[in-house]
């Protein structure tokens, strides 16, 4: 048996919160990373997976983090916890290196990418001048940047997100480390780019004989590349084993829940099973109850959009201007009680369409017919009564709630504006009812948004929309920022509300599986144009456009499909 490259034994990390309270982020975890192996550390937010990776690199904040004395992190037989700062620094970058989630914020915006790669080489390899530059170009070539000799002099902002992540990878492998730690490297990227980056990491791992510690919240992503999977929850390891075993015969209920609560393309249960269902053992029954989707011509049309165009004009120079076509000639019909899915990668214009329908942007051209009136032709004042009929739930639940309002104020605000409810008490009563409806306790009424988790905040945002009893609800990436298990809960809630109130949804997402699960009809967008639209089952079964096929191929299926 070979000796492990990295061996974590009984790692306990505590964070001091204030004088009396501390929080145990890791409760004694142990796992090994063998040479040339990819180990996936999977868990939802708060599971402690990132803390583990920071502990390995010695990057835990000194002020409040303490590592238990009995813990050990052995790298090639040496305990990293006993290393001095200088020793740790020498190790980082040369033996162990890391890539982060957000490439844009990990790269220094005022230096060229070449300079940043050369700096790593200078620091750890002693290369300088021409030698460093040549090596940097070679690295950029290796990570698949087109025209590396030119791109080496560009600044991070001149590159796309995928290219930035490639640069980060180039920096990470510059010194040929033995261990590469990848912390959610693809989470911020589009599906097609995500697939490319995953392929790249897998290829580099083979070529350089690296070990990779891959940290992610998404089990599906690691299915393709991991040899060994470690599933974490609340600072504990729930299950670990060879990837194939974990995916095909998960032993732990939590692992099974994680695998199942993410909607998959080829199955559509009536409700998504959430972790509680697995714990209660009723998940298997739920999976059998399927929901059928699709629209009939007899379904009444709520909103009809014809030829929507939205241009953004930016001034350039003194008189010049540049026009950016965010959305071109978008037409669709939304039917009562049905969901229209809007899929596309970032920059495809799907959010622009959503915001323009809400008149949060003014349409450049086009018509939107709602109850026999063209809402695009209305003035702000004329539109006001219609505003409550069309509502939106934003992507980031941390940003869309006013941090200085209590939840009660947030929910009552639309009622005050639209004069719903006779007085403050009547409004408060309604707010309590809505809180119960979205599954939040009554005491939430007096709390501030920062006291809630992402999923709970999204429920608050939904409750706010429900006060106005809208006919149309636009969900703009409403579940993208949430953990998979929470995502399933929110999707179930949206589904229940649609069944109860007969609202029509415009469901915008980059996640094809989620859109497939929610939608009756789907519209695929790319660079402001509608590529394909039609019945969701038909579209997913037989995509006509090449772009749709490419998108569908990029969905990380891994071994998940075999389990589903």
């Amino acid at each position, binding site marked *: 048996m070979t000796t492990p490259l990295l061996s974590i034994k009984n790692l306990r990390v505590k964070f001091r919160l204030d004088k009396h309270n501390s929080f145990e982020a890791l409760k004694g975890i142990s796992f090994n990373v063998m040479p040339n192996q990819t180990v996936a550390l999977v868990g939802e937010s708060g599971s402690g997976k990132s803390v583990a990776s920071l502990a390995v690199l010695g990057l835990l904040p000194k002020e409040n983090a303490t590592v238990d004395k009995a813990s050990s992190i052995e790298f090639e037989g040496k305990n990293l916890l006993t290393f001095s700062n200088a020793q740790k620094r020498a190790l980082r970058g040369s033996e162990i290196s890391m890539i982060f989630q957000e490439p844009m914020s990990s790269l220094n915006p005022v230096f060229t990418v070449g300079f940043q790669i050369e700096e790593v080489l200078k620091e750890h390899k002693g290369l300088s001048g021409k030698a460093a530059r040549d090596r940097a170009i070679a690295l950029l070539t290796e990570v698949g940047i087109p025209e590396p000799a030119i791109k080496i002099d560009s600044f991070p902002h001149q590159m796309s997100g995928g290219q930035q992540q490639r640069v980060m990878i180039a920096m990470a492998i510059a010194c040929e480390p033995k261990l590469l730690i990848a912390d959610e490297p693809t989470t911020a990227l589009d599906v097609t780019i995500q697939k490319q980056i995953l392929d790249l990491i897998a290829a580099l791992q083979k070529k350089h004989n690296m070990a990779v510690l891959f940290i992610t919240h998404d089990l599906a992503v690691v299915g393709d590349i991991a040899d060994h999977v470690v599933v974490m929850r609340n600072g504990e390891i729930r299950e670990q084993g060879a990837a194939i075993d974990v995916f095909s015969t998960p032993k732990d209920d939590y692992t099974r829940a994680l695998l199942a609560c993410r909607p998959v393309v080829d199955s559509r249960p009536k409700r998504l099973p959430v972790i509680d269902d697995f714990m209660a053992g009723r998940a298997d029954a739920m999976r059998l109850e399927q929901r059928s989707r699709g629209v009939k011509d007899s379904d009444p049309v709520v909103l009809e959009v014809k030829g929507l165009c939205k241009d953004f004009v930016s001034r350039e120079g003194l008189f010049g201007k540049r026009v950016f076509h965010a959305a071109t000639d978008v037409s669709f019909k939304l039917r009562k009680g049905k969901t229209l899915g809007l899929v596309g990668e970032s920059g495809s214009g799907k959010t622009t369409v959503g915001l323009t329908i809400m008149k949060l942007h003014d349409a450049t051209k086009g018509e939107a017919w709602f109850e026999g009136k063209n809402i695009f032709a209305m003035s702000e004042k004329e539109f006001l009564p219609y*505003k*409550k009929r069309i509502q939106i739930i*934003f992507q980031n639940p941390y940003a869309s709630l*006013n941090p*200085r309002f209590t939840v009660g104020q947030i929910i009552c*605000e639309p009622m005050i504006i639209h004069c719903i409810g006779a007085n403050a008490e009547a409004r*408060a009563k309604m707010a309590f009812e809505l809180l119960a409806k979205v599954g939040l306790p009554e005491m939430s009424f007096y709390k*501030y948004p920062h006291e809630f988790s992402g999923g709970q905040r999204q429920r608050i945002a939904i409750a706010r929309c429900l006060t106005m009893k809208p006919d149309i609800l636009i969900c703009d990436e409403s579940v993208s920022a949430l953990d998979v298990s929470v995502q399933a809960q929110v999707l179930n809630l949206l589904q229940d509300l649609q069944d109860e109130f007969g609202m029509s949804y415009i469901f915008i997402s980059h996640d094809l599986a989620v859109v497939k699960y929610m939608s009756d009809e789907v519209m695929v967008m790319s660079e402001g144009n509608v590529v394909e639209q039609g019945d969701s089952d038909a579209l997913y079964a037989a995509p006509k456009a090449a772009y749709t096929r490419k998108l569908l191929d990029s969905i990380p299926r891994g071994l998940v499909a075999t389990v589903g």
Partner: protein
Amino acid sequence: MTTAAINPNNPALGIERSPGLWSLAWKRLKADRIAVVSMVIVIAFLLLSFAAFFGLIAKDWNKEIAINYAPPTLFKDSHKPAADLRPGAATDAGPAVDGAAAKPEFINDRDPLREVIIELKAQLGQSTGAADSGIKIVDPLADVLTELRKQLGRTGDGAANVVEAKRLDYLPFGADKWGRDVLAKVIQGSETSILVGFAAAIVATILGTVLGAFAGYYGGKTDDALNWFYSIFSSIPYILLVLAIAAVLKQKGVVTVVLILGLTGWTSIFRLVRAEYLKHKARDYVRAANAIGASNLRRMFVHIFPNISHVVLVQLSLHVVLFIKSEVILSFLGFGVPVDTVSWGSMLNESQNELILGYWWQLAAATVFMAVLVTAFSLFTDALRDALDPKLK
């Protein structure tokens, strides 16, 4: 401007409201020792000036109760009270009599005639008419003069004081040129300075916040216009602007000083608030407010304002300090409060001449009071900023 008052203590629930920004900030402020000390000092000053405002203390600052330039109690030995330097003092009060009565500490302990002198003085002090008659001997018009003084009412009892009551030889903080109590003056001065500081800071903050909110929120042409206005305002030298506004207002007074400072001091608040609004208007929660149909004004002042109110409060606090200092400078230069009111600045102005003669106590009193308040207020502002900074949570 607040949203519906919701009954927090719903009987069915019996739970408490979560602590908001302000209660958390207050908690942090209380935990900060420097903040508490400086807050106590500031509050003490505020109470002092309130008391002065309502005439509870230092009402009689204008009374000439001591001899001219009477020294502070602590330094009575090292400073000889000078001869009466008041113009016309010789004909007015009679230097011989007044002077003799006013200098008991001049008695040499080894003087053989000491006993006699003390007795003589006691006699003079007892007979109230002594000084009067003394004057009458020298000045045949003394009666008329006293009568005239009474009619003019300038010094009111002062005239009687001059003539009848014994003037004090020293005061806790000394006396000024006219024998007025420096302590009373400095308290009265702090009332003026604090009033001016707060009022001007409030005027400037309201102006800066409202203009900044409009410029930042609306952007485009509104922003351009307000920025032009701001640039013009800040391109004129400060003192020149002050002179111009003073000339337009055509009168001297506390209100004028408040207006001058308020109208010139809003610019930095404007820039800050504008930047905050620029930042916040693009935030999702403002977009969400738009989506639920909140009007522009509602978005500006109900939704965004609570999120930037801590910035405004810190600016207000900073500007109070700034304007207290500015008022002192203006009054020192003679553009400030009129002569019939006293402020720290006008005290400093008076002490210019006194300092040459070695009478430093008026300068010291005004400077110490001002320094203590300004330092305490600045420390308080820093602590306030720390307490309100969401990043330091």
